[in-house]
């Protein structure tokens, strides 16, 4: 996080943080690649802000080490790490104009007046604040304040930009717009972005990788499609979006995947089955299941009865109950849902083997 203009590579090694007897972070190890857009995703209270504060140097970890470009920075004070940071609530200087806010980190670095003027001007332009330079933060809308905070954090070309739920105070349409701008800024600057959110769709849409937190633990890190399609556990599977969970019995590994009995029918699954034997949970996303009149013997399928539907415009969400009483939700074309519901008797739910994945039974 030192040389300006160069994206940093960060390594967290066994980071832990206790507040009294409370464990806010537990044995967290994470590599953040140069120039990547990493999102920390987790429910409120899962330790995301604490981890970000440790990266910025505002909070000292109780255990573990932090490296930036291979250099141990665990004990380096925040003002020397100089990570760009956008706080929850922005934390702009209320007594300084937009221009003065953005110039602050440059003044601290004793840049010449002409350089400051030029770089602040560029930044103002880049985040679309032209014409607002002389205003105080209190005279700006939430979205504009957000832009000032971004400009102030990026103007000194930090090796890493840390963002703590920057969009949580914005309304939905503005949020979409800011997300697009964020992506653009990431590409233009090439800086490493570490972005915190509790919104899974935001995380999936923006990031090159997502790190999922719960109760102070890092549960999984991976590309958005990886964590969505192959969640490491039940919490990740459920947190990233709606998902169906079906009990399977007699799980056995079989060339690269696994087989088992689901509702007394043989099913094939793709998974790392070494760890899972016997009883387990089969997880399938609603959009990966389809409705069929019948299922052949070597096709994955279970029989179910449609009980309710919710029209969503582009598709319909259909709720079904299986013969053994499990509840399943599928997302299907509108006319398919209508006919399934009108039949009243049972239909078949089918899914491709590679879309079902096994999770350990019970707990996480």
């Amino acid at each position, binding site marked *: 996080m030192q040389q300006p203009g160069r994206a940093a590579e960060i390594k967290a090694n066994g980071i832990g943080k206790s507040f009294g007897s409370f464990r806010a972070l537990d044995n967290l190890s994470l590599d953040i690649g140069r120039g990547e857009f990493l999102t920390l995703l987790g429910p409120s209270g899962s330790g995301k802000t604490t981890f970000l504060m440790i990266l910025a140097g505002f909070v000292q970890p109780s255990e573990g080490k932090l490296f930036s470009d291979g250099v141990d920075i665990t004990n380096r004070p925040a*003002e*020397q790490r100089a990570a760009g*940071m956008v*706080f929850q*609530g922005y934390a702009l200087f209320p007594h300084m104009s937009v221009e003065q806010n953005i110039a*602050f*980190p440059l003044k*601290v670095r004793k840049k010449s007046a002409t350089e400051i003027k030029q770089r602040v001007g560029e930044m103002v332009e880049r985040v679309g604040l032209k014409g607002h330079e002389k205003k105080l933060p209190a005279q700006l809308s939430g979205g504009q304040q957000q832009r000032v905070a971004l400009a102030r954090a990026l103007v*000194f070309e930090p090796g890493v930009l840390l963002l703590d739920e920057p969009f949580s105070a914005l309304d939905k349409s503005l949020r979409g717009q800011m997300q697009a701008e964020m992506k653009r800024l990431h590409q233009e600057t090439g800086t490493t972005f570490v972005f915190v959110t509790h919104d899974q769709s935001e995380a999936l849409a923006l990031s090159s990788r997502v790190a999922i937190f719960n109760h102070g633990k890092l549960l999984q890190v991976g590309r958005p499609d990886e964590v969505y399609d192959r969640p490491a556990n039940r919490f990740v599977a459920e947190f990233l979006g709606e998902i169906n969970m079906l009990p399977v019995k007699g799980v056995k590994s079989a060339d690269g995947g696994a087989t088992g009995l689901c509702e007394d029918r043989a099913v094939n699954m793709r998974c790392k089955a070494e760890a899972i034997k016997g009883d387990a949970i089969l997880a399938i996303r609603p959009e990966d299941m389809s409705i069929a009149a019948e299922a052949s013997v070597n096709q994955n399928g279970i029989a179910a009865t449609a009980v309710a539907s919710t029209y969503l415009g582009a598709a319909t969400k259909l709720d079904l109950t299986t013969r053994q009483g499990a509840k399943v939700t599928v997302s299907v074309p509108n006319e398919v849902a209508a006919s399934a519901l009108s039949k009243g008797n049972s239909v078949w739910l089918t899914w491709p083997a590679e879309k079902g994945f096994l999770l350990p039974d019970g707990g996480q």
Partner: protein
Amino acid sequence: MRGTLSDRMGAALLMAPLLLFLVLAYAWPFLGVVKWSFTLPTPGLEQYHALLTDDLVQSVFIRTLRIAAIVTIVSVTAAYAITVVWVRGSPVQRVLAEFCILVPFWISVLTRAFGWVALLSNRGLINTWLQSIGFISEPLTLVRNEFGVIVGMSHFLIPFAVFPLASAMRSLDERVLLAARGLGSSRMRTFWTVFVPMTRSGIIGSAMITFVFSLGFFVTPAILGGGRSVMIAELIYLRIFQSPDWGLGAAISVVLVVFVGALMALLFRYVKPKQLV
């Protein structure tokens, strides 16, 4: 913030005894003083004319303003330092600071003034000590002059200067200070360019309160000034009780009250009353 009509009536009823007391004890007698200023010894503007021409009265006015200004700077600066410790220090520092702020409220203004005489006089603790370590040979004149008055008044006013500052510092968003540090600013720089400007309303409130209080000081300057640096309140006392010159005393009082009233009006234009406590 505005309550219902009955809420406000209720509040007005609860305030009524206090308002009545203020009217009976201050407003009514003050009207009498105003009347004297225009009627004694003979009706007319004579006393106000004297105010503008009398060298003694003018020098006392100027001294009062000067002392009040210096006391304000000293008190607000000292109070700022104490308040930073009180609001942002470690738990132990906070308790100590709170103790320093509250204890003076339990000791009467007379006791404190005489305490300073004991410390500052020619054979007081400070002079004796400085002489004993050979730092000075002749005692320093620390009391019965403006210096003594300023020390005593500042000591009295610092606790009052603390509260508006504490209120400003408490309402400050901690994350803004973190942001400054994160942007590379040293603690010193953050203090001067972020913390101090963000507590501006507290500084204004604190300075105004101190200044207004200073203008009306009587006991402290009378004791620590030793008759040599008379301030305006003491002058009024002398005019009314020693040289029976009630008209001039009354005219000075009226000018003082009007001046203070104008300052208060100015104060409340910049600071909300709730920021002062």
